[in-house]
Structures are given as C-alpha cells and as structure tokens.
C-alpha cells in the first residue's frame, strides 16, 4: 500500500474528473518510488502544464510546476545542479510532444538521469479536449470535429530514436506492470521514459463512442499488444488490428548518461 504520507492530504480530492487515469498513474509512480526507497527530501517532482502536470501538487515533496512544455528543461537544471536528487517528471502528450517536443528529444539525447512519466490521454484535456499530436487519425476532438486528419506521434518510439536509456509503454489499466516499468526506469542510469496511455472519459471518450469509464479502460486494455507478441505477429504476417499499440519494455540500454550521481 502506498504510504498516505506521500500525499498532500489537505489538497485531496484532486481536480481530476471522475474516472481520469492520471490519479492511477500517480499511484503507480509513488509505488515505484517506494519500491526504490527514495526519501522525500531527495525526490523532486517536476511538471509542465496540463492535467497531468497538476500531479506534483498532490505529492508531499519539493515540486516544480513549471510552464507549458518546459518541464524537462527545468528538470535538467535541477538534476545537473544536484545529481544526488531523484528527479521525476510528470508530463502529458500535449506538454511533451507538441510544445515541448524539442526539449523532449534533447533530454533523451543528453540522457539526463531522470524518470519521465507521460500521461498520454490523446488530447489536450485541461483546455477542453482539443486534438493533440497523439490524437489517433479519425478520432473526434473539439478541434478535429470531422476526425483527426494528421498522423499521430508514437512517443515511446520517439524516445527510443532520440536515445533514452529506458523506454516502456503501458496503460492505466496495467497498474502492476506500469509500476514495475517505472521502477525499472528509475533503476536505469540515464533518462527513463515511460508512456502511460490513459483514459480521458470526459473529453476523449465522450466524443469517441467510449462513453463510460470502464468502456474506455477496456478499449485501452484490448488494444494493447505485448511487444514480443507484436513482433511475432509482424514476423508471421498476421494483420495488426486497427488502433492497436505495443506495450512493454521497448528498450533498456546503457548509452552514456549525464547527471548520474557518482
């Protein structure tokens, strides 16, 4: 059980909508932090702007809630100035991939020793459900009323290509696996990127025929394919179902990293 003293009790309940997966991902991250045995005084949570980025405000540690998209740059400053701190970044798909895309690829390239947890809910949730760089083609959002026409980013693959030392993807349904992945990322020196696909029932599900919270979670669960299974399917020429995405550990390696405490 996550020790209740990790939470700012006076701030709960949080601002997230009913059924929002962000709270689940906070749980998984804190469970991983507990598994690592990190102390509260040495753990810094950094975030940008968006629903996901309100997370550090509910966690009882030093925390930096920064400007839109810049969380990774702030976190780089914190970690480089104090390599003995454990730095965790909460970010969202809009924050990370749109306005913060440049900071994202450069943080992966530098391989600064920190853990980045991206709550990917396919849209800009806080501003009311506009299309983001991860909105799947065809999905309805308030700025893609006829279906998204742009191809979407695969954030985890982007992190692999940009050089992060640990990359994994899970969903808010896979709580145990997600916790393990975040903990594995925290253990890996260098940048660990964990993409957590999550449900936004209010602004995404409602417009995309996934009206209830369980329906949206079930959609995430049923479209997640383990990396190994996916590779087997590709090798055997089995058609990949539409909307499916890989989950699991995508990469774990030891490229030279920055800000690793000696």
């Amino acid at each position, binding site marked *: 059980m*996550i020790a209740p003293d990790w939470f700012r009790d006076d701030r709960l*309940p949080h601002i*997230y909508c009913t059924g929002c997966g962000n709270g*689940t991902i*906070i749980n998984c991250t804190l469970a991983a932090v507990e598994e690592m045995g990190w102390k509260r005084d040495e753990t810094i949570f950094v975030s940008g702007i968006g629903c996901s980025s309100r997370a550090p405000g509910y966690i009882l540690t030093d925390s930096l809630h920064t400007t839109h998209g810049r969380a990774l740059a702030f976190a780089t400053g914190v970690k480089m100035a104090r390599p003995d701190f454990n730095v965790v970044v909460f970010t969202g798909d809009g924050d990370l991939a749109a306005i913060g895309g440049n900071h994202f690829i450069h943080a992966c390239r530098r391989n600064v020793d920190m853990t980045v947890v991206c709550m990917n809910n396919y849209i800009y949730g806080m501003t009311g459900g506009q299309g983001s760089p991860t909105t799947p083609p065809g999905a309805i959002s308030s700025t893609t009323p006829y279906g998204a026409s742009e191809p979407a980013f695969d954030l985890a693959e982007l992190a692999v290509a940009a050089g992060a030392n640990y990359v994994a993807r899970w969903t808010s*349904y896979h709580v*145990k696996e997600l916790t393990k992945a975040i903990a594995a990322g925290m253990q890996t020196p260098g940048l660990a990127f964990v993409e957590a696909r999550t449900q936004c029932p209010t602004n995404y599900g409602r417009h995309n025929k996934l009206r209830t*919270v*369980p329906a949206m979670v079930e959609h995430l669960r049923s479209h997640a394919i383990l990396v190994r299974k996916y590779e087997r399917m590709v090798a055997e020429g089995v058609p990949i179902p539409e909307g499916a995405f890989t989950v699991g550990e995508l990469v774990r390696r030891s490229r030279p990293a920055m800000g690793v405490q000696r």
Partner: protein
Amino acid sequence: MKLVIDESRCKGCNLCVLVCPYKIFQEGTELNSRGIVTPVLDRPERCTNCRLQALYGRMLCGVCHMICPDQAISWVEERPFEPHKVEVEF
C-alpha cells in the same frame, strides 16, 4: 484488516468494480452526501488483502488500491480483531 472506501475522495468512476477479481466492489445505487454514487462493498472480508496482508507482511493483489484514481481505497487496522467467517466461491 478492513477494506474501506473514503467517501470524501471517491468520485464514483467504478474502476474498482472493473478490476476486482472477487467482484467485491459493486456499482452503487444511492447518492451520498456529496452527490456521488459510490460503489458498495459485497462481503469485503473475502478480499485476500484483508485476510492475508498481516500474515504475509506485504500487500497482496491491491489492484483496486492502485487503480483508484482518487486514492480512496485503503485498508485500515481492525481492532479488536474479530475473526470472520469467510465464504470463498470457487
């Protein structure tokens, strides 16, 4: 140990209903004082974590606790401890 839902935090998303392997959480029907329909517990003493957490000294299962986005599900100590008659369905 006793399974509890913190009514001051629960927003009634019913994710616990979806994940509980014992179907302990059931969708509620009545509004609480905050205007939220919170899930109700069906024979919570069946929960492995209630029964065996103290024995094993770690959390067992606990998926409801992890997935609850509102940090509303937890276990509290029961004192004085009263043994429950447990009906386990196979």
